[in-house]
Each structure stands twice: as C-alpha cells, then as structure tokens.
C-alpha cells in the first residue's frame, strides 16, 4: 500500500510532465499552423513557420508539402526567383507522378508570370513529349495557351486552346485579339510607299496627314534645289529635313501600331486577370 505522501509526490510529478507535454508540438500541428497562416494570406509568416518545420523535422514527411507552400507563398509575394527555388525542391521531393506533374505546372506558372515564357514553353514541351503524361494533354495545352498569351503570340495561343476544344473560351478570346491587332510590318511598308499611310492605317489620321504634308514640302524643296542647280541647298534640305521627316514617318507608323496593339493586348490581359473564372497562373 503506497503512502499518501508518496502518492502526492508522484501526482505532482505527473502534473509537471503534463505541463511540459502541452508545450510540445507535433510536426503535424506545426504544419497545420503554418498552413493556417498561408490560408490567411500571411505569406511572410507562413514561410517562416514552414522553414521552421523543415529545420526541426528530420523525417522526409513534410519535404514535399512544406517546400510547395513556401514556393507558393513566395509566388504570392511576387518573389518569383525564390518561388522557383522552392518549387524546384518540391519537384525533386515529389513521390508520385501526379505530384511531379503538379509541381512542374507550378514552376511553369511562375515562369509565365515573370514573363520568362521561353522557359515555360520549353518545360511544357518536355511534358508534352513525356509519354507518362499522355492523359494530361488538355492541361498541358491549356498552359501552353497561357504561355503563348504572355509572350504575345495570340495565334499560337488560339491553336493550343483549340486542341482542348474548338469553342474554348480562351480560343475565342485569342482569335478576337488576333483580329484586332495591327500588322507592324504592313504599317511600315505603307509608310515607305506613301509617307503617312502607315499612320492612317493605325487610326492616327492627323499625324498621318501632317507627316504626308511635311514630306511633300521638303521633298519638293529638295528636288527644286537640285533642279535649280543649288546642290548644297538640295543636300542640306534633303538630308537634314526631308530624311528626318521621312524616317520619323516610318518610326511613327511602327510606334503607333505597337502602341495600339499594347492597348488591345492589355485589355485582354486585364479581362483574364479580373473577370475570367478559369484557372490562372
């Protein structure tokens, strides 16, 4: 029969151990805590807690998930280089084919966002050529389309989306953008033949007419100088005035086409960011 004093001592000891035990956190709890911070969009703190988990937890259990969430946190913070570092670690630590594919897609999405689209396209090509992902063709084509959109290649974007579905919403969007874009080369050629024509093609009527007027004026004065045997005057007018306005006309034709195209593409990109409800990078 144990004495009352001994019993009190043992109970006190157990009580102290229980207090200590409550201070211990399981790795799962730490993971859940970090995930909660991620869900609350406290990305900086989420990264700290996931890094803490990885530092102390010596098992491999959380390598994939923790690195993934660190990468996604950095991506949400716009820190794309750091995001890629951790998403690459995620890919390395993936245990299943699906995990590998999903982490590769995340890497591709970050490359799209930071506009290193050639890298995104080459990664997508490697997935396309990998026979173990034949069941993922639609998803690969979907992100191919996005990569082409971000590299301003709306025709190829349309082609990629059409492989999923001929009436895919993004295919129709890409087609409408392609139809609205001005052809830079055509604008320039028109201005080579008739100064100001390229500007009129892009909708800048007043600039086109002014350009035409100046070129006609200096052209006439140059020719007149040569006809009147005022060679020096002709050379000066031709090189400093006529050439200047002629080159300016070519520059403007190209510039207006680029500027108008930028407005069209930015409108489409704004729609994709704010109103499109599908998967986005």
């Amino acid at each position, binding site marked *: 029969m144990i004495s009352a004093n001994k019993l009190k001592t043992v109970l006190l000891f157990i009580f102290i151990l229980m207090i200590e035990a409550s201070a211990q956190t399981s790795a799962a709890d730490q993971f859940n805590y970090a995930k909660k911070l991620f869900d609350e*969009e406290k*990305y*900086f703190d989420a990264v700290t807690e996931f890094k803490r988990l990885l530092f102390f937890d010596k098992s491999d259990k959380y390598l994939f998930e923790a690195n993934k969430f660190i990468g996604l946190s950095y991506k*949400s*913070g*716009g*820190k794309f280089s750091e995001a890629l570092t951790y998403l690459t670690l995620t890919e390395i630590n993936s245990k299943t084919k699906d995990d590998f594919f999903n982490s590769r897609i995340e890497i591709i999405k970050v490359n799209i*966002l930071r506009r290193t689209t050639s890298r995104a396209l080459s990664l997508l090509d490697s997935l396309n050529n990998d026979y173990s992902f034949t069941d993922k063709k639609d998803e690969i084509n979907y992100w191919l389309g996005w990569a082409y959109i*971000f590299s301003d290649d709306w025709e190829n974007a349309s082609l990629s989306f059409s492989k999923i579905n001929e009436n895919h919403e993004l295919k129709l969007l890409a087609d409408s953008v392609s139809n609205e874009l001005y052809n830079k080369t055509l604008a320039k050629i028109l201005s080579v033949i008739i100064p100001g024509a390229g500007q009129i093609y892009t909708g800048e009527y007043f*600039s086109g007419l*002014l*350009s035409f007027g*100046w070129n006609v004026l200096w052209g006439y004065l140059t020719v007149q100088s040569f006809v009147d045997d005022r060679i020096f005057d002709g050379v000066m007018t031709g090189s400093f005035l006529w050439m*200047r*306005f002629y*080159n*300016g*006309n*070519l*520059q*403007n034709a190209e*510039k207006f086409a*680029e*500027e108008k195209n*930028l407005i069209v*593409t*930015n409108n489409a*990109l*704004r729609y*994709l*960011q704010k109103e499109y409800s599908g998967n986005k990078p």
Partner: protein
Amino acid sequence: MRIDFKLVFFVLLFSITAFCQTEQLKWQKADISYEKENNFRHRDYSFQFNDAGEVVKKSLAMTYWFFISDVDGDNCPFRPSCSSFLIDAAKETNILQTSLMFFDRFTRDMNVFKRKNHYPRVKDGHYYDPPLNYTLSETKIQYIPASSVVKE
C-alpha cells in the same frame, strides 16, 4: 521589488520602434498585374495658368511638339528631350543662360560617337542628361555613373 519605470518605458519604446521597422520590411501579398508596362512617351499638354510667361512658353513648346517633334520621329538620344530640356532650363535660369544651355545640348546631340561611357541611362535606353547639371552651380550637379540606370 521596485520597478524601474524608465527602463521599462525605454525597453517598451525600443521594442515598438524596432518592431515597426522590421514589420515594414516584411513583404506582403503582391498585386501582380498581367498587363505589360506602357513605356510609350505621353506628352504633358496640361497648362498651369498662374503665370502668363509660363503659358506663353508652354504654348510654344506644345506647338513645336504637335507640329514638328511628334512627326519627325525620336531623334534625341537624351532624356529629357531637347525641347523638354529647354523648358526645364528656362525654369531654372534666365533667357541667355537657357539659350546657351540649349545650344550646348544641341551640339552634344550632334555628337555621333558613343556616349555610353559618359551618360547614365533611363529605362527605355535613352541617355539621362538633366539641365540641373549645366546651370554652372556646382552644388546642383548630381553626378550619376555611366553604368547606372536612372528612374526618371
């Protein structure tokens, strides 16, 4: 036990200050935009009607921009452009000094040799050449090394 309130206050104040400073350094969720940056130059055609002289100067500049500068292409390798340089110089100095600064700028514009070892650049690749460096006031000169990229 006496509590040293001054020490407590100091530690608390330091903690709050240090906390605020490091809190400001912590990055937040970024507002990532899909849109491409629009680096095309847009002229400032606004008027400030507080000074008749300014109105006259701005009108002349705007007429030049509209009928000549915006039509003859981007010939100036510098930013601010020669016309903007003239306007900014006129704000800082008198008419004689402005004229001399303008003709000096025009001469440097005609220099066909490489400028990359002398002028820093702005984002779109033009050379940064502000009029403040040419007012003959040494305290106003802001030397920036040629290898730098300047935010205009």
